[in-house]
């Protein structure tokens, strides 16, 4: 308890028992945190650990349910980002809020006092950016700038308000290694001036390199406060992913059949600045297997799903194979016709259209694969709503989907019930290959176990199941094989029985255990 006993006067910001409830779910549960002047403090944790909720409360975006925030020993109420700025807290968000059509100076001016002239802002920004090694041309249009340069605008914009505490949310997730190095130099300068930095990351390597202290969150609670340099990556990883031993269940049958899903050297370039490129992904899923892919969000999971589902086909036909046939260049409909089923991560607006009734959302995924049952009139394609409603009822019953009314809009269902329907929609076809991204993301415990059981049962019946998930408990519950995705690269698959949380945590944090692989990743 030495950290808590530390005299209040020398902490710049301290947080006591801060709690945020969303309904009955505690995103942050009694968080204690202390940031001293002139330190770089790391906030570590997996996705969903509560890091973002915590900093949103510190920056006045969310109001805490209970608990206290002390600034220089005095209790403060931070009601809005404006209040946070006036207090002396600045924040650089992970996703930038910049107007592409405006210049750098204009973008900066938007967040400042409207009375200050643009010329003055441009001048100050130029001086500031030079001093901190963040070269920026105030007259440049944002649209022409790289992601790293855009981040500099956000940092300069924050620095112009002369904050004593700067919060950086996953700043390197969008940077090249070279840009990241530059950022670290800037952070060192800020630290030398006596400013504090709260640095949010899940990359252990960086945290060990630049941070003085670290607070680790897991499931909304603090699981450790330490000096990252005194820790090993393994011990940090353990704090991040938890040390309890899971009840590992070998899910599939032992008798493994033929290969049903295969990716061979699957390469996909990043479509947007925020996307991750996939590099040489190789995976195989046999009949009866559940391959689970673990990894921290944003490491290429959705890109992998898009490539495997055929929503964005790839250039090489043999990069993706279903039931031994090359399907890389084929679209999602062709892959469905070969017996594959897909469950994307986002329920609203991807797996389902929230404004349309469940029956329409059934047609959404199965209009082509079940053409004979659901459509009539040949080329006219008249939807047979009687058959569709019947199937909707069957799926709802099979998956215990609780809904109001016979055929309510998908958006009116709770997350768990809609997810059960979306998974059930695919299971109802008995797919021989099922690819699921985050099957139980934001789903209540009861629905989650039902969905996981259904995935296991499908594999037992001889299908190949690929589960992409950030939830390690889930992975240990369903997987027969486990692989980890990191920065668009996939580790080899290991049998689930031999895997430990620690090993997964290390693979997640980017420690492949192979030096040359790391270098290759940083060489681009």
């Amino acid at each position, binding site marked *: 308890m030495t950290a808590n006993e530390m005299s209040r006067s020398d902490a710049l910001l301290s947080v006591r028992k801060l709690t945020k409830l*969303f309904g009955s779910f505690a995103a942050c549960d009694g968080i204690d945190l202390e940031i001293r002047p002139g330190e770089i403090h790391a906030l570590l944790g997996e996705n969903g650990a509560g890091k973002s909720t915590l900093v949103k409360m510190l920056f006045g*975006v969310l109001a805490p349910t209970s608990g206290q925030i002390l600034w220089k020993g005095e209790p403060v109420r931070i*009601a*809005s980002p404006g209040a946070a700025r006036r207090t002396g807290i600045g924040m650089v968000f992970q996703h930038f809020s910049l107007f592409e059509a405006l210049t750098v100076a204009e973008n900066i001016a938007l967040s400042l006092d409207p009375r200050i002239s643009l010329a003055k802002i441009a001048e100050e920004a130029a001086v500031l950016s030079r001093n901190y090694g963040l070269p920026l041309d105030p007259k440049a249009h944002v649209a022409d700038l790289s992601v790293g340069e855009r981040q500099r605008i956000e940092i300069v914009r924050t620095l112009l308000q002369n904050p004593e505490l700067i919060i950086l949310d996953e700043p390197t997730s969008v940077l090249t290694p070279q840009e990241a190095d530059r950022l670290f130099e800037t952070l060192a300068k800020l630290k030398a001036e006596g400013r504090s930095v709260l640095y949010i990351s899940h990359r252990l390597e960086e945290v060990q390199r630049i941070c003085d202290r670290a607070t680790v969150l897991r499931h909304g609670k603090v699981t450790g406060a330490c000096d990252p340099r005194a820790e090993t990556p393994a011990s940090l990883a353990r704090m991040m992913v938890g040390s309890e031993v899971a009840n590992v269940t070998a899910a599939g049958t032992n008798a493994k059949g033929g290969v049903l899903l295969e990716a061979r050297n699957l390469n996909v370039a990043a479509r947007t600045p925020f996307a991750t490129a996939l590099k040489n992904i190789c995976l195989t899923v046999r009949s009866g297997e559940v391959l689970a892919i673990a990894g921290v969000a944003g490491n290429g999971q959705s890109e992998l799903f898009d490539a495997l589902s055929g929503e964005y086909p790839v250039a090489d036909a043999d990069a993706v194979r279903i039931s031994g046939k090359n399907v890389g260049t084929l679209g999602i409909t062709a892959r469905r016709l070969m017996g594959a089923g897909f469950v994307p991560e986002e329920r609203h607006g991807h797996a389902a259209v929230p404004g349309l009734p469940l029956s329409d959302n059934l047609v959404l995924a199965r209009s082509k694969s079940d053409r004979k049952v659901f459509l009539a009139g040949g080329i006219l394609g008249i939807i047979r709503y009687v058959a569709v409603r019947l199937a909707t009822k069957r799926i709802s019953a099979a998956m215990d989907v609780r809904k109001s009314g016979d055929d309510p809009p998908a958006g009116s269902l709770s997350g768990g019930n809609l997810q059960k329907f979306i998974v059930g929609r695919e299971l109802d076809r008995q797919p021989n290959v099922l690819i699921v991204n985050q099957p139980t993301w934001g789903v209540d415990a009861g629905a989650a176990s039902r969905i996981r059981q259904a995935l296991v049962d499908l594999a037992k019946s001889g299908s190949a199941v690929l589960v992409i998930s950030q939830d390690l408990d889930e992975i240990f519950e369903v997987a027969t094989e486990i692989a980890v995705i990191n920065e668009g690269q996939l580790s080899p698959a290991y049998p689930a029985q031999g895997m430990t949380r620690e090993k997964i945590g290390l693979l997640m944090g980017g420690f492949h255990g192979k030096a040359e692989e790391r270098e290759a990743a940083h060489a681009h």
Partner: protein
Amino acid sequence: MRIELEKRAGASTLYSILSPFIALGLTVIAGGIMFAMLGKDPVSALYSFFVEPLLDIWSLHEIAIKAAPLILIGVGLAVCYRSNNWNIGAEGQFIAGAIMGSILPVTFYDWHSPLLLPLMMIMGMIGGALYAAVPAFLKAHMNTNEILTSLMLVYIAQLFLDWLVRGPWRSPDGLNFPITRDFVPEAVLPELISSGRANLGFAFAIIAAVLLWLMMRYTLKGFEITVLGQSERAGRFAGFSSRRMIWFSMLLSGALAGLAGIAEVSGAINKLQPIISPGYGFTAIIVAFLGRLNPLGVIVAGLLLALTYVGGEAVQLTLSVSDKVTRVFQGLLLFFVLSCDTLILYKIRIVFAGRTAEDGAN
């Protein structure tokens, strides 16, 4: 203090149905105020604007004539907007269809054949579709904003028509007026019933509206339009292509606007002249929204907007007010329709300084 729009938990079914009528009522009230400010008696002005045209066979035919292009264009636009493609250039496609459809009767002036009329209609549709293909291509392959491109093409079409009738297509017997020769009788759309001028164009409009309603209601294509309009990503997941939808929706609305153009020229004007439309292509946007983007609703909305044209002409004559009155009424109507629709989904909240919307993010 600032004003915020806050999303309502659910839309009231009652108000969804009532909304167009409330909008119409508000338009009438605002119109009455406008007449009063112009120094006219609002009651009698509104009477001659909205009621008198309905009491006379001649003006009923005029309403049908004006409703035909509004409905034809409006149903195409309704489907197009449902798919989240925003074709604003129907006026240009209307003109393009009129020009393309007039090639045969103008250049082969002496050709008398029962084939002439169907060919004109088909060519009109092709003309409108080709003209809509330009913004479709730009959007599908260059990621250009179709609102801007389709709108800008309107002015090009208008000027091209102007040049045609003053230059190469000017009638040799027209005393140098900028008009083409009158179409031969075989090139004129026949009248619908013997009591007046209303022509087959009105029948085309009703048939098109019913067919598109059936498509939207019962077929996979209609489902595809709805899904892609609400969520492109979900459409991609379903295996639908938003790029193909751009082409489909733009070509469909262009073809219908083109058909409206040639039907208007052939049925009501019987020749080409510099101005062939009192803004049908733009008014049809109001029609599409007033009809709630539902093809059957568009029929009703089209008839109503046609009434504003005829009523506008009536008050112009009887009360000697400006012909801009029609435009004002149409603008008021669109304004009230859109605001009523917005208020079904959102409520207005006035936020006073000091209070913050902290949990709004969730």
